[in-house]
């Protein structure tokens, strides 16, 4: 039952990874226990380390971790200077308080900084950071562009636009670098803001030209071919989509407002159904087919299921151990690691064992064979000289 190597046939659908990560994120949103949150981060990190590819986006995990740390820091700085609504008795320092006019009542700058307030802010920041890190894990394991490929036919063209836009960003960066280098050749400084601003125009011109070239190439390769659809079906599609969207709007308004409690939910559901019907019918205009779509196999279900299980178990734990999941900041107590919720978080480790091994994932083996000085099968991508 050891995991196979990931090829195009065995690769997991992007959706499975995102469900798993969203499951972990949901679990994180249900607790403020720093130990449990730390455990969740550890689980996500371990799975990423075990199963990420060598694609450029797989490195984004580190960036998300850093972003999480920044979030915690910002939260703490705010709590330090702006005070916190948590009453506390352990005063750390007392800052001079800025007197504010009457209309700014409720806002405080400076004043007493309590240990309880800081701890509360830390827990809160940690929760947010964990959410971010879970999203980062999904991002590292499955590029969001791959998710777009599973869009229904009617939304396909939107998906392509997003994918094309995403590949344009790196091109734009390369253009800026090239043109800044070219400024050096004209004897102008290549660093600093003016240099960046002056290459703006040529970069935009280049981007525009590239988009026109790409559009021509896509057109010549059949992008936007559509099937002949009877008039009646076309009109039904428009009516369903428009009507559905109106229904969704009205239903949401009803749900949020006070008066429409009765009709809100049914209207929302009917609108949603109509809009989905419209999308489905709209898909008939598109003649496209899908080449080797990713399949939901047992392993995909296990990965997605483990995430969902973590979320469900954590929600359930909220009913039997609410205090353990939310350690109070007042009075200050050391957080404990509740046994059963911790075990349920560990369920999220399942993908590290069942998900297919990415190619090049045996980094340890490769380094070992290099150490022994054996002939290495050189990855043609890396132009490093072999030792």
């Amino acid at each position: 039952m050891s995991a196979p190597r990931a090829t195009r046939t065995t690769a997991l659908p992007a959706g499975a990874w995102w469900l798993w990560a969203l499951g972990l994120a949901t679990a994180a949103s249900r607790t403020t226990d720093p130990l449990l949150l730390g455990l969740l981060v550890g689980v996500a990190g371990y799975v990423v380390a075990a199963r990420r590819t060598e694609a450029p986006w797989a490195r984004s995990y580190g960036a998300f971790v850093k972003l999480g740390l920044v979030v915690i820091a910002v939260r703490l700085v705010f709590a330090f200077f702006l005070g916190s609504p948590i009453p506390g008795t352990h005063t750390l320092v007392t800052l001079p308080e800025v007197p504010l006019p009457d209309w700014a009542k409720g806002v405080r700058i400076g004043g007493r900084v309590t240990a309880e307030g800081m701890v509360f802010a830390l827990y809160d920041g940690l929760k947010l950071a964990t959410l971010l890190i879970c999203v980062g894990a999904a991002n590292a394991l499955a590029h969001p562009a791959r998710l777009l490929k599973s869009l229904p036919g009617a939304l396909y063209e939107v998906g392509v636009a997003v994918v094309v836009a995403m590949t344009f960003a790196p091109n734009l960066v390369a253009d800026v670098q090239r043109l800044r280098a070219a400024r050096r050749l004209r004897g102008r400084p290549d660093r600093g803001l003016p240099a960046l601003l002056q290459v703006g125009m040529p970069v935009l011109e280049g981007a525009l030209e590239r988009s026109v070239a790409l559009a021509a190439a896509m057109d010549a390769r059949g992008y936007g071919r559509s099937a002949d659809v009877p008039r009646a079906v076309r009109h039904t599609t428009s009516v369903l989509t428009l009507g559905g969207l109106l229904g969704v709007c009205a239903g949401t308004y009803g749900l949020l407002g006070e008066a429409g409690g009765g009709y809100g939910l049914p209207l929302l559901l009917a609108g949603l159904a109509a809009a989905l019907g419209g999308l489905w019918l709209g898909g008939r205009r598109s003649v496209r087919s899908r080449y080797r779509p990713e399949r939901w196999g047992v392993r995909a279900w296990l990965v997605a299921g483990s995430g969902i299980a973590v979320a469900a178990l954590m929600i359930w734990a909220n009913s039997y151990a609410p205090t353990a999941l939310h350690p109070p900041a007042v009075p200050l107590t050391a957080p404990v690691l509740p046994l059963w919720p911790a075990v349920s978080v560990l369920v999220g480790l399942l993908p590290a064992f069942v998900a297919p091994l990415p190619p090049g994932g045996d980094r340890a083996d490769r380094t070992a064979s290099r150490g022994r000085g054996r002939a290495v099968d050189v990855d043609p991508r890396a132009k490093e000289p072999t030792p």
Partner: protein
Amino acid sequence: MIRFEQVSVTYGDATAPAVQGIDLTVPEGELCLLVGPSGVGKSTVLNAVCGLVPHFTGGTLRGRVTVDGRDTRTHKPRELADVVGTVGQDPLAHFVTDTVEDELAYGMESLGLAPDVMRRRVEETLDLLGLAELRDRALATLSGGQRQRVAIGAVLTTHPKVLVLDEPTSALDPAAAEDVLSVLQRLVHDLGTTVLLAEHRLERVVQYADQVILLPSPGAAPVMGAPADVMAVSPVHPPVVALGRLAHWSPLPLSVRDARRKAAALRTRLTGVTPPAPGAGQAVGGTGTGPGAASSVPAPRGDAVPDGIAAAVSGLGVRRGRTEVLHGVELTVRRGETLALMGRNGAGKSTLLSTLVGMHPPAAGSVRVGGVTPHRTGPRALLRHVGLVPQEPRDLLYADTVAAECTTADQDAGAPAGSCRAQVARLLPDVPDSVHPRDLSEGQRLALALAVVLTARPPLLLLDEPTRGLDYAAKARLIEVLRALAAEGHAIILATHDVELAAELAHRVVILADGEIVADGPTDEVVVSSPSFAPQVAKVLAPLPWLTVPQVADALEATA
């Protein structure tokens, strides 16, 4: 298969049609080559076949273009996608997806083919083009030749009857170009695909063509015929044809093999004659008046001027990330010397040039350019020591008229007003001040960028792939200009795939492979012995050390 009936195309508000009077038929299963100087409308003709003219570009098309019986006036490009496959000049700019396999499938997905058909055709195409090893690779990591093959494969999967290619080998090194051409050969021979391609590098393609369509000048009616007949009258022709015309061989040879069979007499006549030193300017094809008359300048010798060293590189290593791009490079360039830097795509040629202008700090060794260390010198000061014309000359041009460009160039270089304009007048006699640099032809833009760089009078001049997109006339002008500059004492380094250019111009050739110098010596010694870097004349006349047609022409005149 492709029929043009009295076609003329006029773009937007242009006064004259871009092409007119085109009336021709390309039969099924032929490899048809479209040739002509720059700006005669080759791209317009190609785009008219796939329907991008006029549907995408705008403009007015008169007459009729039909492809496999479908009229392009009533069929949009996307409706022709199953009969015409189009491969553009820069494949990377036309890729829609990010991996090889997805790119191959993209066209079929658009046509809505059944999944099992798609799967089978992708596998067949991977084998046909030798791409099976690359199937999971990201497109951005491929080399130039691999990209071009993927681009061809991506349009082949829809089984088009016609394949249209715009300069498929221009950007490739000689070996990669051979790969791409053999794929095209195979398509024509085995699958009966009709191929229409435009190419400036005729020495690479003309021997494979079944038919040649010549657009002799803008607005002139095309000439179509067998390659040998058309080449006899064509203003653009490869060196082997020039040699054949010179020696009055009939029928004209198109390949080195044909020429060698006919060349026995010429070889005996030339035995015993010593060719003039390579690079020391012989006149080019009869246009050798003006700056080209530098023929009396001998190739500089190492001991001529003791302090005449324009650049000295020793033990140079350059790293980009973890990759060592250059390793232990030793190179000295003297003033007045022209050096050609050759090697396959990715061998480190461009990196070496940019290290000489200080864009990459060396990881090991030292670089000295005219007494300064480039990466520690400010751009303004460095400008007086070394100038680089990048692969895309447009990167150097910011202003919206030629005149404004010249003014800023004078300011940048601290040169007296008008010096850049004087350079432009010398390199590009007939360009008005008010033209936008973007509207110039490739050759004119290169000349403008060269003028801008020369304004600061750098003793060392670097050119990265200067002949990309140039026709033979523009190339001949460039050769004259560079010879004159070398005669004035500039040291010139060219990074190029163009073996004919190197043979005409360079005193010395340096071949790079995997970041190391593998050959360094006088042009005739290095290139004659190399199968991929030898110019056509050298291949025809081997083992005699003749490199260019003008050399042979001079010798024949002298012995006549």
